[in-house]
């Protein structure tokens, strides 16, 4: 593999430096490096980040290849600056056996655009009744360490307790989709002022908060770690903050869309805004931003959820829940966190690369940008301003809530172990 010299990039937003990539690793980081026979990338004004890591991606394969495949999903990930994604287990068949997670892992290897770390289901068929073979999935080639029934909540307290305990044997983590099922029967959107007017079934904040409260207590009781998926309410932030103050091993993620959008958008009845957990209120959005800034929320995760056009081109109640997010995640974080002064770029690297890699116990990602480290890198032009046009997406699906919205920043280059997957904003 040839050498690449990234010249003059602000490493983690700091002083401009030259970074030399040799083969799969970073060879040197210095204020000035002789190019020699290296390919030079002029990166004046650009920010160099560690390759982004997503803890929460729906790649839909196997089973729903009409909305996304491992190949198209990892292409979208690369465009978004990601070098590793965690593929959620709610596929058809469900990723609840070693066979399925190994298949997804192998498809990721073949794609070559970013590393795919399969997530295993907690329970057989996501049905919340019987533990899946968590150990077998961990011991498989896929090396699963994150387990989640995402899309469904592990609502049975005993099953949740056992899962939390069981994965301690191999340092696994349960990533909980916190949604009390009885409180959210028929739920269509956030319960509040807007749902009352629109006559849509409410998804109350307490349905998320009560499960998070229960699970942090369970994790503390059995001495396990628990990760909260797509935390979406101000009340959830308070509970996680309290759990962390006790020293309990609780981590949490927030999606880009919950950092930017509110339930006011649902007034359009446009199902592109239908997502689970639902868009919340301005108060929640501001609390989530603050929590991500102060570290109460550990990381950003996309919950990239592709759906075919027909599943969104219909009435609200009939539409699928979810939004694509890989290709816009960093721009939304720049808009909501960097340009508001809440996070600097070093902290963005922490929330979108270092922390998610630690939570997922993912080797080779989320590493410092220094000599000897794997060359998983993302180069961002923060001065760029562009309008989101889903027609240009690498993802197979177009269900973005940002169509026509101007967002800042663009990933110009992504490197996966020294190989460019994205060059000048296009797939290499």
């Amino acid at each position, binding site marked *: 593999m040839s050498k690449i010299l990234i010249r003059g990039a602000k490493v983690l937003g700091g002083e401009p430096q030259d970074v030399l990539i040799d083969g799969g690793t970073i060879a040197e980081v210095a204020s000035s490096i002789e190019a020699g026979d290296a390919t030079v990338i002029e990166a004046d004004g650009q920010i160099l980040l560690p390759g982004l890591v997503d803890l929460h991606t729906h790649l839909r394969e196997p089973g729903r290849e009409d909305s996304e495949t491992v190949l198209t999903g990892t292409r979208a990930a690369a465009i978004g600056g990601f070098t590793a994604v965690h593929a959620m287990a709610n596929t058809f068949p469900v990723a609840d056996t070693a066979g399925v997670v190994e298949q997804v892992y192998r498809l990721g290897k073949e794609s070559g655009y970013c590393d795919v770390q399969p997530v295993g289901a907690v329970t057989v068929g996501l049905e919340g009744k019987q533990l899946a073979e968590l150990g077998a999935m961990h011991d498989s080639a896929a090396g699963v360490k994150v387990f989640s029934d995402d899309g469904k909540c592990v609502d049975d307290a005993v099953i949740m307790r056992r899962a939390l305990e069981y994965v301690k044997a191999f340092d696994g983590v349960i990533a909980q989709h916190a949604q009390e099922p009885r409180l959210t029967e028929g739920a*269509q959107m956030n*319960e509040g002022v807007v*749902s009352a*007017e629109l*006559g849509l079934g409410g998804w109350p904040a307490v349905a998320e908060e009560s499960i998070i409260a229960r699970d942090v207590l369970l994790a503390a009781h059995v001495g396990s770690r628990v990760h909260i998926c797509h935390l979406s309410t101000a009340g959830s932030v308070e509970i996680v903050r309290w759990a962390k103050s006790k020293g309990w091993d609780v981590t949490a993620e927030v999606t880009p869309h919950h950092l930017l959008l509110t339930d006011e958008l649902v007034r359009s009845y446009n199902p592109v805004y239908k997502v689970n957990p639902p868009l919340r209120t301005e108060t929640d959005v501001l609390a989530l931003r603050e929590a991500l800034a102060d570290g109460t929320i550990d990381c950003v995760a996309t919950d990239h959820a592709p759906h075919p056009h027909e599943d969104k081109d*219909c*009435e609200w109640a*009939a539409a699928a829940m979810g939004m694509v997010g890989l290709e816009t995640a960093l721009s939304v974080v720049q808009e909501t966190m960097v340009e508001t002064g809440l996070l600097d770029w070093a902290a963005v690297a922490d929330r979108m690369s270092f922390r998610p890699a630690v939570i997922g116990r993912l080797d080779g990602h989320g590493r410092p940008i220094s000599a000897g480290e794997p060359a998983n890198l993302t180069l961002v032009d923060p001065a760029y301003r562009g309008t989101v046009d889903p027609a240009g997406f690498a993802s197979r699906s177009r269900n973005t809530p940002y169509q026509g919205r101007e967002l800042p920043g663009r990933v110009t280059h992504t490197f996966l172990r020294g190989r460019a997957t994205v060059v000048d904003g296009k797939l290499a």
Partner: protein
Amino acid sequence: MKHHLVSAADLTRDDAVLVLDTAEEMARVADRPIKKLPTLRGRTVVNLFFEDSTRTRISFEAAAKRLSADVINFSAKGSSVSKGESLKDTALTLEAMGADAVVIRHPASGAPYRLANSGWIDGAVVNAGDGTHEHPTQALLDAFTMRRRLVGRDTGLGQDLAGRRITIVGDVLHSRVARSNVLLLHTLGAEVTLVAPPTLVPVGVESWPCEVSYDLDRVLPKSDGVMMLRVQRERMNAAFFPTEREYSRRYGLNGERMARMPEHAIVMHPGPMNRGMEITADVADSDRCTAVEQVANGVSIRMAVLYLLLGGAEPAVTHSRIEETK
């Protein structure tokens, strides 16, 4: 007026008064031996019903026919989503058939809004009830009934409902009638109080332009009109209230309670009534109860709405036109 009628909030005070005044003109047509106007001759009105509602459908059908429109009834219940045809494809089909107006009833809140705003069709969309969202023509016919009874048939022309105190009782949470009525009555200057057990009031109601009370007996003496909403007996299975009897005792309207209302006050019900549940038979059959009038008024209101959305600037009723139809 806007091109569509999706929400009672689409109407300004002047729009709403215009609809009520136009409906009075239409009502006079109903009193004539030949109940037909040529106004919408050659126009096509589609009744697109995704859930059963014979009462509402025949009301719209009668209204459109009295205006000489061609009426197509499209009963899509059980055929659309379950058999795989989307709302969009149904809409495109109707558009291809040249529908000038689509009257839609749909179990999903917001379906008429989608139909009106998605670019699937050009025709006017009239919401005939969507999920637990709105039912604007019901609110208009209720306001029409109130204005006639509380202000007067002739003296009411050009008037709104300023200062009238209207109480709406029952399952507000699941009621599209309540939502549309709160919006329209507020626009018309009435003071609205919702009365229901707390379980049947939506979270977020505090932003609505009305009062909320849990005590029917306290509100009745101060009401010019009391609207009883239908309460489905099955709601008790989801723990909204303990039993039918308890609901009836606390929130039902019986003769004794009706006696506490001011003498001029009316009792309204959008139908169909659950006699013995939210309303007792003696109240339902009393001359203070306007339920049957509301049905008749519904046709006049729907004629007015279709005329105003489709008829353009021409006057609705002229003598020569009446003669023409004879």
